[in-house]
């Protein structure tokens, strides 16, 4: 029997380096292409909209136009709205959203963990949670306005119920999905039931909970805006309903875009937080062009 050991094929270091830089350039080019195409689509869309509005193919009175929306937004920024400065409207809506989001998320996580860890409580309460969840929650907005008035409390309450059930359902599921072997391992290493909840169950439910926070922040914003819509003294929702009452399509679109920008900024912040908390997770297999 003879053993062969093939000597390394002589690939010079410079050849490898140039191959690598070529590969990097390819990745960069593709990235630039994606961004360029995105910008192109935006320009084509806005351009067509503007042209159609100018030439009367669509009626800008109903469907607005990019230039009209821009003028409206600019005048809100520089001159303020009919109900005070724009910044104040944004601030009020954000405040309601955040307070509602915070209370709903914390409540949902705590309730989810308690019910997830206690089978009897879960069996007893599951039916009520199903019922409460099937009520169209936006309708509760009217109840809250009657009960809590036109101030901030009614909007916060609506945002809370919008957020609570989503976060609760995810936290509950996350607790239930916690790995049996991992729990048994902690138990044998000497963990008490409370230590297991704190150091095994909660972290393993965390990726479920954080995933729900993305969705539920949007819900909190919907809760706050709908609450303002139904009756308020200030806020973006009131701005929309005032514009709607005055047949001001520019105003409706403008407020909508401002809300979308707000949601995108917050979404970005939540993603940052998520990456920080879940730094133990393996990187997704392919994360290009994000």
């Amino acid at each position, binding site marked *: 029997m003879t053993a062969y050991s093939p000597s390394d094929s002589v690939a010079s270091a410079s050849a490898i380096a140039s191959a690598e830089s070529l590969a990097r350039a390819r990745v960069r080019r593709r990235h630039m292409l994606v961004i360029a195409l995105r910008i192109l689509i935006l320009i084509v869309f806005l351009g067509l909209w503007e042209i159609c509005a100018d030439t009367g193919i669509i009626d800008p009175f109903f469907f607005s136009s990019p230039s009209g929306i821009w003028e409206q937004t600019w005048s809100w920024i520089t001159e303020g709205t009919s109900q005070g400065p724009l910044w104040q409207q944004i601030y009020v809506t954000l405040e309601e959203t955040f307070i509602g989001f915070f209370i709903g998320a914390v409540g949902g996580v705590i309730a989810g963990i308690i019910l997830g860890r206690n089978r009897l409580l879960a069996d007893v309460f599951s039916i009520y949670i199903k019922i409460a969840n099937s009520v169209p929650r936006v309708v509760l907005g009217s109840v809250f306005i009657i009960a809590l008035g036109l101030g901030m409390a009614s909007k916060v309450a609506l945002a809370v119920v919008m957020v609570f059930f989503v976060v609760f359902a995810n936290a509950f599921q996350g607790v239930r999905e916690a790995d049996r*072997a991992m729990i048994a391992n*902690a138990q044998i290493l000497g963990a008490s039931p409370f230590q297991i909840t704190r150091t095994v169950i909660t972290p393993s439910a965390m990726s479920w909970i954080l995933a729900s926070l993305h969705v539920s922040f949007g819900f909190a914003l919907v809760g706050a805006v709908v609450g303002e819509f139904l009756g308020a003294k200030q806020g973006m929702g009131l701005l929309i309903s005032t514009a709607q009452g005055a047949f001001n399509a520019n105003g409706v679109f403008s407020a909508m875009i401002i809300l979308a920008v707000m949601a995108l900024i917050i979404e970005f912040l939540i993603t940052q937080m998520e990456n920080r908390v879940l730094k133990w997770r393996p990187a997704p297999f392919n994360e290009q062009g994000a």
Partner: protein
Amino acid sequence: MNVVQAAASTVAQDMVSPDAAIAIEDVTLRFTTPDGHMMTAIRDFTMTVERGEFACVVGPTGCGKSTTLNLVTGLLKPTTGNVRVMGRPVESISPDIGFVFQADALFPWRSVIDNVAAGPLYRGVAKREAHERARDWIARVGLARFENHYPHQLSGGMRKRVALAQTFINQPKILLMDEPFSALDVQTRTLMQDELLTLWSELQSSVVFVTHDLEEAVALADKVYLLTAGPGTVKSIYDIDLPRPRVMADIRYDKKFIEIARVIWNDLREEVQIGHSRTLATGQ
């Protein structure tokens, strides 16, 4: 052949000594399945592990091998019979017990050092001291440079090393292992078996090692328990008197090892066939 007969003699009745590390006496365990049927996992099961002894349990799939381990931890209670650990009846999980799982049971959100320090921290040791001890054990399993890595950054073999350190840091007097190396490739498995024997000889704990790999059992154990197809009971017990320290990479070519393995395999093959044909017959 004479050598074999002497080495792998079937012990008819195991003596239950009061000083044994683990004594399972005449235990039967029945479950009620969710659809209301009674299922017998193990029946009339008797097993004794002396202090410092390395016992392996082999048997066909589904014969209740892992059940025996859960009886020792107290996670399962026997229907009849009794289980004693270090001379005392099992009531709750004893702090003397360490358990290495088949699946990856590390905490993925904790770095290697925090994983290994988990046991002492759960048991109320101060963080600084727990980390100091953890560092020592991480070095012993050869992962000193990986303290701050997360489990997903390690290979399967390295994760098993972390799991061993995590278990051994509590200095368990009784070590239970449920097919711990079955997910590893053959070369890594050989390394881990050597690692385990080294750690075990330092700690002098009593081991119950469950495996479906007969050669692994013969290579590691002082005593091999062969179970029947489910509901499992002890079919035969073999004393393995291969000299220690054993080197895993070489032992599989040892003549005596091969003879012993062959004798036990002849015994086991029957049960494997019974278990297999029963599975095919019931479709479960």
